[in-house]
């Protein structure tokens, strides 16, 4: 039996043990019966519900697929444009982050207002997909081997030829990493959208209707089924990506670090100028949208109204106070969530180098956890972590780690063999390879991952606040929508987006410091 087979056998054994323990806890303990249903019960319930699974599942798959296609198409197009014109990327950075960092609790109700049918959840899925997929693709397009760029230039090829013949092909593994991020996120977005939008079909709707029925086996079954669909989406793009990565990484090491290539150039003044444009553009688009659609200002206040809400009139100081209080609760936890999420993503990605079989075994578990609708796991999370900071950070990690993990793992797989060979000849094992080669080589991916996590962490904590702790910005926004207090909602969204942008830029600043020494 080869080493790999033996390791796989050990993992199968491990999985069986875990299942057995789960079965025992889920059927023999009172709390298990109530909130941690045994696999057998989940399966039995799912079998009884099979017709519903079919109806709801079909809707979710359709919504997620359409959202995936739209989101990825937009991501690819945007990445292409941003690669061709880094200035454009700088200018649109604010819009990009805003699209990504917009809390679902805020977007959901708005989408439901302006779109009919399956569109709200489809658009939510596309929105969740867009930014991570765009980031991954852009990273791949940018990290072109300078030797190949020289070759194209020497034959008179311009940016178009370079794009066509080198960048596209070189970015394929990253594109597939983007797809791998996007597929589960599309499912998550669809489920989240269905959960809120009042649609009748889809796992989100199924979940919502199952939730008050006190039937944890059904709840977990729905969650696991949604996770499996997400996992299938992930796996779909994993196999071709593996093959692609092998044929894409250069045989020899380029003299230029790939991360150094992707770091945007330009003087400080230019960067500041574009940062201002980036800041202004979302406001401009916001104003345009509000003005053109002529929506009631009660629901869609423009930028001016929102700023006035915060700084003028009787309610301003009360509003600022409420927001300040909420932020004071949310921000520290979000910072923790960011670090914890990144750390978890890093550990998981590192395991894919250090203990590939273990990583293969952990991956589905982590994916299921990430895609398990949070509402379904609230009771068990509460049981294990309570309702304090730990629980919030845990929920944030669940929400956050996945895109970061995929990007990191992608970075690790593009390391040219020549570099790993060097470590091997000096007796270095996987750990040294990770520390001395894989991490520095894919430092660009590491920072890209951190930039993704920064806005996500805030969102994750807000979800936890809404479901678990009833504090902070997440709770404030949730409560405000009941009171139709859209001024507060937009103000809160605005502030959370500004914070996300700031975090994103801070990561970029650190990257520039680290990469260009």
């Amino acid at each position: 039996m080869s080493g790999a087979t033996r390791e796989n056998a050990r993992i199968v054994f491990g999985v069986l043990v875990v299942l057995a323990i789960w079965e025992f806890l889920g059927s023999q303990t009172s709390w298990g019966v109530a909130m941690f249903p045994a696999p057998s019960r989940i399966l039995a319930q799912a079998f009884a519900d099979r017709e519903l699974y079919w109806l709801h599942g079909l809707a979710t798959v359709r919504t997620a697929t359409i959202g995936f296609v739209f989101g990825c198409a937009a991501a690819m197009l945007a990445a292409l444009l941003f690669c061709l014109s880094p200035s454009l990327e700088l200018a649109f950075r604010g819009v990009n982050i805003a699209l990504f960092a917009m809390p679902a609790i805020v977007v959901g109700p708005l989408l439901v207002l302006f779109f009919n049918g399956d569109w709200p959840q489809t658009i939510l899925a596309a929105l969740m997909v867009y930014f991570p997929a765009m980031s991954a693709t852009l990273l791949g397009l940018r990290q072109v081997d300078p030797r190949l760029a020289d070759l194209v230039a020497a034959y008179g090829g311009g940016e178009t030829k370079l794009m066509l013949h080198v960048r596209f092909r070189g970015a394929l593994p990253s594109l597939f990493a983007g797809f791998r991020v996007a597929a589960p996120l599309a499912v998550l977005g669809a489920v989240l959208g269905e959960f809120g939008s009042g649609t009748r079909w889809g796992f989100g709707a199924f979940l919502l209707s199952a939730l008050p029925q006190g039937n944890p086996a059904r709840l977990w079954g729905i969650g696991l089924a949604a996770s499996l669909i997400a996992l299938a989406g992930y796996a779909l793009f994993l196999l071709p990506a593996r093959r692609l990565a092998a044929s894409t990484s250069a045989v020899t090491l380029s003299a230029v670090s790939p991360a150094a290539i992707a770091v945007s150039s330009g003087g400080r003044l230019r960067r500041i100028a574009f940062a201002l444009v980036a800041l202004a553009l979302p406001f401009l688009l916001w104003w345009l949208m509000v003005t053109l659609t002529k929506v009631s200002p009660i629901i869609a206040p423009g930028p001016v109204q929102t700023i006035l809400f915060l700084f003028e009139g009787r309610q301003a100081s009360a509003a600022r106070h409420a927001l300040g209080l909420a932020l004071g609760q949310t921000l520290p936890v979000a910072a923790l969530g960011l670090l914890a999420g990144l750390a978890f993503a890093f550990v998981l990605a590192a395991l894919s180098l250090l203990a590939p079989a273990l990583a293969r075994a952990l991956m589905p578990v982590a994916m299921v956890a990430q895609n398990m609708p949070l509402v379904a796991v609230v009771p068990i999370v509460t049981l294990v972590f309570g309702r304090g900071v730990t629980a919030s950070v845990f929920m944030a990690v669940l929400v956050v780690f996945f895109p970061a993990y995929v990007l990191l793992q992608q970075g690790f797989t593009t390391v040219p063999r020549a570099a790993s060979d060097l470590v091997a000849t000096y007796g270095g094992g996987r750990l040294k390879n990770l520390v001395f080669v894989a991490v520095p080589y894919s430092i660009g991916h590491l920072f890209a991952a951190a930039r993704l996590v920064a806005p996500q962490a805030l969102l994750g904590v807000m979800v936890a606040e809404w479901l678990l702790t009833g504090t902070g910005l997440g709770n404030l926004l949730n409560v405000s929508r009941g009171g139709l207090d859209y001024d507060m909602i937009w103000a809160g969204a605005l502030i959370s987006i500004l914070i996300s942008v700031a975090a994103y830029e801070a990561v970029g600043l650190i990257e520039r410091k680290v990469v260009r020494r």
Partner: protein
Amino acid sequence: AGTPLNFQSIWINDPEFSGYFIALDKGYYTAEGLKVNYIPGGPDVIPQASLLTGKADIALTSLIETASAVSEKGAPFKIVGAQFQKSPDSVISLEATGIKSIKDLVGKTVACPPLSLGTFKVLLGLNGVAEDQVKIVPYAFDPTPLATGQVDAVIDFMTSLPFIVEETSGKKASFILFYDSGMPFGQDFVTVTEDTLKNRRKDVVAFLRASRKGWNDDFADPLKYTKEFENSWYKGNGYTPGAAEYHSKIQIPLMQNPKGVFTIDDESIEKNIASLEKIGVKANKDLFDTSLLAEL
């Protein structure tokens, strides 16, 4: 009238809306010349907002949100009827916990939806309980914490939860209506904008009339429709037949009024306004327009 009447519901399809389903299925709306387009609700669906964007012409809303939108944001809403005379909002607990009145919540943990938090706190105050005497945690529609004893009580509609908790935990559950504890509110108020009221008054009246017919059918034989809708309107909504039956029956007394379902009169308006005042929401009688009911 060829223009459809978009009707925004307040929650996902369940027995809470049987009357409308009956009216739809039996063609009561069509008979009135209406083309009603039923839009289900959900956690992200804010019916008042649907009215404001024009997505809906008529909506079921909660009073607190509607009233505060009118008084604080100047929203042009009018309430033309109330589906529930008494709101099903309740404190629900296991009987064994011994919570018989709001006072008994002292020292207990209560799961409360963030949206109801303000109301609940006032309710505590009205019953002489200080806020910090009760531990309040967020509630997200899941009865598991109650069934497992993670919390002592939850704030939710009593229309299905007590049944479900009894089924799953095997223990008797009980509820205390907010209505009966100093907070008399109605629920699922039929709401329109002033524009709609002006331009489509006839349609709104017709809607109320047809809907009332539907509800009357339901009151006459709730179980018949529960069965009937199991594979149509309710399909996929997670209810067991038992829970649906329980829901259908228990809600009827909360809706019925000698003058017919949807009735609002001076007395109920006063009660509702008084309750609003208790939680600090200003409202006056103009919020309600009872003249349409008079035309039914």
